[in-house]
């Protein structure tokens, strides 16, 4: 089988981040934003909102203060790329934030770092101090601070993240208003994933063409993947978008891959028969980077149960469909497994999960049906027997 996967090195390449910033500060905000729009860059945290448009919306708002937030609350099971990016190229992340600040007109930036990554704090504080001195030399008004999370997955959702930064329970807000018009402390805010900020910096350096020519129509450029599970080569890989799952499994599988969970506990489970027809990207199955491979020795019941228990614990409890739905799905598959409920009960549970998709307030509850329905449909026997 031919393997067409192209490895890329935009994220981890060591570059002179200050030179890129200097060059960018010579250009107008609109020019840079247009480049980011033109490149086709979409948010790398999972949701995939076009980055350039987000910046444009935030720039167009009139306000006395605006904010840049770097979302480093990487909590999706199977994802660990943001930690690696922050560890290896922190300066590029900081410069990406400053670039965003320049473009939208914000003078304050925050990194929301999950508590599980607190060990990065001394290193990051040092990098920030150094960066601040460089900005001062340039007379460029922008400062960065770190807000620590405290172990809540839902705070990766941008509005919950801002609630947490404001000292409240991390419960997602209603949208609209969107953060670009009313975000942190009610001010226009651009919340971007760690990886997205670095890509934006690289696009400011290289221009939009190189990035745009990679990938597919809806999924331009490259992406950092976190590969784990039953694979001989677990780790972090930056790959050009647009590959099929078959190509991916040929590269990373152990020869016995029966399923791949694309996008973590809130993503989709793809079975072997569908590897060939499944594109990894916004046209097919999008992912924030999490790719978990499972071979035939694994019980899909255990995997589904693990994901559901995760969601049950991490549901903020604010809206009923998610709070009660998660609990009932966990109970429901256990009842079917034990024979307390007939196999047909799984269809009832799927109706419940479909309701959660429609009625939940935020992405957490809305995406529980992704793993649930895909695992039930692909591995029904394993759930029942």
């Amino acid at each position, binding site marked *: 089988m031919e393997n067409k996967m192209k490895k890329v090195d935009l994220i981890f390449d060591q570059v002179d981040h200050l030179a890129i910033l200097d060059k960018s500060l010579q250009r107008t905000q609109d020019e840079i934003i247009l480049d980011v729009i033109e490149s086709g860059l979409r948010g790398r945290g999972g949701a995939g909102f076009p980055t350039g448009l987000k910046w444009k919306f935030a720039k167009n708002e009139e306000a006395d203060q605006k904010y840049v937030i770097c979302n480093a609350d*990487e*909590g*999706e*099971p*199977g*994802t*660990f790329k943001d*930690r690696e990016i922050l560890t290896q190229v922190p300066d590029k992340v900081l410069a990406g934030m400053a670039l965003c600040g320049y473009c939208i007109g914000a003078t304050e930036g925050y990194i929301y770092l*999950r*508590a*599980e*990554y*607190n*060990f990065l*704090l001394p290193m990051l504080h040092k990098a920030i101090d150094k960066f601040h001195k460089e900005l001062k030399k340039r007379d460029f008004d922008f400062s960065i601070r770190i*807000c*620590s*999370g*405290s*172990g*809540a*997955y839902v705070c990766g959702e941008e509005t919950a993240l801002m609630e*947490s*930064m*404001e*000292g*409240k*329970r*991390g*419960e997602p807000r209603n949208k609209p208003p969107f953060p670009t018009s009313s975000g942190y*402390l009610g001010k226009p805010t651009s919340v971007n994933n760690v990886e997205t900020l670095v890509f934006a910096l690289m696009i400011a350096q290289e221009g939009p063409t190189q990035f745009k020519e990679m990938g597919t129509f809806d999924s331009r450029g490259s992406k950092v993947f*976190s*590969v*784990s*599970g*039953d694979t001989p080569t*677990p*780790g*972090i890989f930056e790959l050009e978008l647009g590959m099929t799952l078959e190509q991916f499994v040929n590269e990373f599988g152990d020869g016995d891959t029966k399923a791949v969970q694309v996008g973590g*506990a809130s993503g989709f489970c793809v079975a072997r028969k569908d590897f060939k027809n499944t594109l990894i990207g916004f046209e097919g199955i999008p992912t924030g980077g*999490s790719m*978990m491979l499972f071979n035939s020795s*694994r019980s899909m019941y*255990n*995997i589904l149960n*693990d*994901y559901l228990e*995760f969601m049950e*614990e*991490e549901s*903020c409890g604010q809206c009923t469909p998610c709070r009660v739905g998660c609990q009932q799905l966990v109970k429901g598959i256990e009842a079917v497994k034990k024979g307390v409920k007939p196999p047909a009960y799984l269809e009832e549970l799927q109706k419940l999960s479909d309701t959660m998709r429609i009625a939940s307030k935020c992405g957490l509850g809305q995406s529980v049906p992704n793993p649930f329905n895909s695992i039930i449909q692909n591995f029904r026997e394993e759930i029942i027997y």
Partner: protein
Amino acid sequence: MTRIEELVKEQADKHGRQRTSLMPILQAVVGSEHYLSEDALVAIARELDLSSADVFGTATFYTFLDTVPRGKYVIRVCKTITCHMKGKDEVIGALEDMLKVKLGGTTTDGKFSLLQANCLGWCHKGPVMLVNDEVYPEISAEKAVEIIGGYLKKG
């Protein structure tokens, strides 16, 4: 002024008394006291001029802001799927035997709490555990016992 009130005042002087100061203060108190006692929550509420229910509500939302007493060293073993597949149960079993404590419990000398946590972000290097803020990836049952042995000696 009690010791807790002094600690809270000191942290409020450092982080400020706005609502945005609440998380850093809660985190700092957990850092030094290992948990948020009722006295601490009330003291924080007073210092920041918030209702204690509001402060309690915020604190209990977050897994890492403990409101029950925890040990000096909080061990959190990742329980999410890839760490599960790589043997987190053996790690937990070995630590339970070593510390004579059940999962979720705290040793009688108040030194260690043994907990599970959701994905810690080391899926390629599981199993993994945190001891307070320190991270230990690619552990085994033996290695975990050795690491915690080091903390035992440290006192």
